[in-house]
């Protein structure tokens, strides 16, 4: 990683502190010349960036930029290269991503960039809300990027992405369902009046543990401390860093957040995000489904 890492003490205890930056560190970098560093904002709301963003940052939209418009899949190498190049990002660029909702969409963008093997991509701890809570500079000015030449890279899904068949083969091993308790138990099938958004069956994948994603975040959107995260996932849920773990939610966004926590903050070596998640599993024919709350 070419760009220096944030040496802040509060990040030092995480397994991979080079994957996070603090608001203070980012502000310091942006105050001077910072060749080789690009900041991206990734939000749930496609217009939020336009209401004001960190100066010099570019918008990346999880849906219009990172998802294929036709197939339920991510963009291919050529489309990804275009998205990166237009934002002035080359293969060696250090990318810092931040966003709303405790960085859940930022983590999703980071995970997709990791599918393409982009080496140095980091999250801004606390995301948009932390930056704004500290009254740091925001602007409506959209920067013009000097177009970069991002290579066309073929996505390598296998290490960190699970498909439905992978999950079937994984049954009996560790799995984390990061949705709300109501979605986990099967009480909540889908949002009212929205059958097309929902699933035909409610519940969870047998054997999955219920750890709602937000348990990994503090009130202010920053990640909990290493000790608190170890308590949550390792002591309470008995997950071990050397295990194969699959995480999922409804469409794979919230579980990207948990994927980041397990992989980069706790140092788990083999975590895959099942982005088909409940909107695939809950509609698939003859896959096993379990209902009810988590067993004690």
């Amino acid at each position, binding site marked *: 990683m070419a760009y220096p890492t944030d040496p802040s003490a509060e990040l030092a205890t995480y397994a991979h502190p080079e994957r996070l930056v603090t608001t203070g560190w980012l502000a310091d970098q942006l105050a001077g010349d910072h060749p080789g560093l690009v900041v991206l904002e990734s939000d*749930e709301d496609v217009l939020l960036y336009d209401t004001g963003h960190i100066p010099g940052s570019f918008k990346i939209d999880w849906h*219009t930029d990172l998802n294929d418009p036709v197939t339920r899949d991510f963009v291919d190498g050529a489309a990804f290269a275009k998205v990166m190049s237009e934002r002035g990002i080359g293969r060696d660029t250090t990318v810092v991503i931040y966003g709303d909702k405790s960085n859940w969409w930022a983590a999703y963008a980071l995970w997709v960039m990791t599918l393409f093997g982009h080496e140095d991509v980091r999250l801004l701890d606390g995301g948009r809300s932390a930056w704004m809570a500290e009254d740091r500079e925001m602007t409506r000015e959209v920067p013009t990027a000097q177009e970069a030449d991002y290579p066309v890279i073929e996505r390598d899904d296998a290490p960190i992405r699970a498909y439905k068949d992978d999950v079937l083969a994984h049954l009996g091993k560790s799995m984390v369902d990061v949705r709300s308790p109501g979605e986990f138990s099967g009480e909540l099938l889908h*949002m009212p009046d929205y059958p097309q958004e929902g699933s035909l069956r409610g519940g969870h994948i047998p054997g999955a543990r219920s750890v709602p994603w937000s348990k990994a975040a503090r009130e202010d959107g920053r990640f909990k401390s290493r000790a608190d995260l170890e308590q949550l996932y390792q002591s309470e849920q008995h997950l071990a860093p050397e295990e194969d773990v699959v995480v999922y939610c409804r469409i794979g966004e919230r579980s990207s957040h948990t994927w980041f926590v397990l992989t980069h903050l706790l140092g788990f070596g083999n975590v895959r995000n099942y982005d088909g998640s409940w909107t695939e599993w809950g509609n698939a024919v003859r896959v096993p489904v379990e209902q009810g709350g988590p067993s004690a």
Partner: protein
Amino acid sequence: MTDDATLPPPLAELIEEFGSVGPKDRLQLLLELSEDLPDLPARYADHPEQLEQVHECQTPLFLAVEVTDGTVHLFFNAPKEAPTTRGFAGILHEGLNGQPAQAVLDVPDDTPFRFGLAEAVSPLRMRGMVAMLSRIKRQTRAGLAG
């Protein structure tokens, strides 16, 4: 496609306006409409329980419909952190507020797809606006009956 002559004129004008620009400028228009969405009057701001939540929006959106002398009045509440949702509400407010109840009821259910926004904000996000319109029509119907 419905003949625009049957739509309330302000709504038809908005469709024309959105259609006359490219996707980027459509987002800009949507942002402006989100900023122009009026605040709730005190009688709703102080009694949020009188508003109906539109669950299909990504972010909480609440609305109320009043029908007085056959005319529809719309009230929306959505957080500033949800500009897209506010923008959808802004379109419906600008296009339908003050219109005759029958004209609102006659708005086709697929009208939200006529602003060319699906490609700008993704089809997935359009469901919030479809749901808002259907609830507005349902409350209008109830307002007429009551």
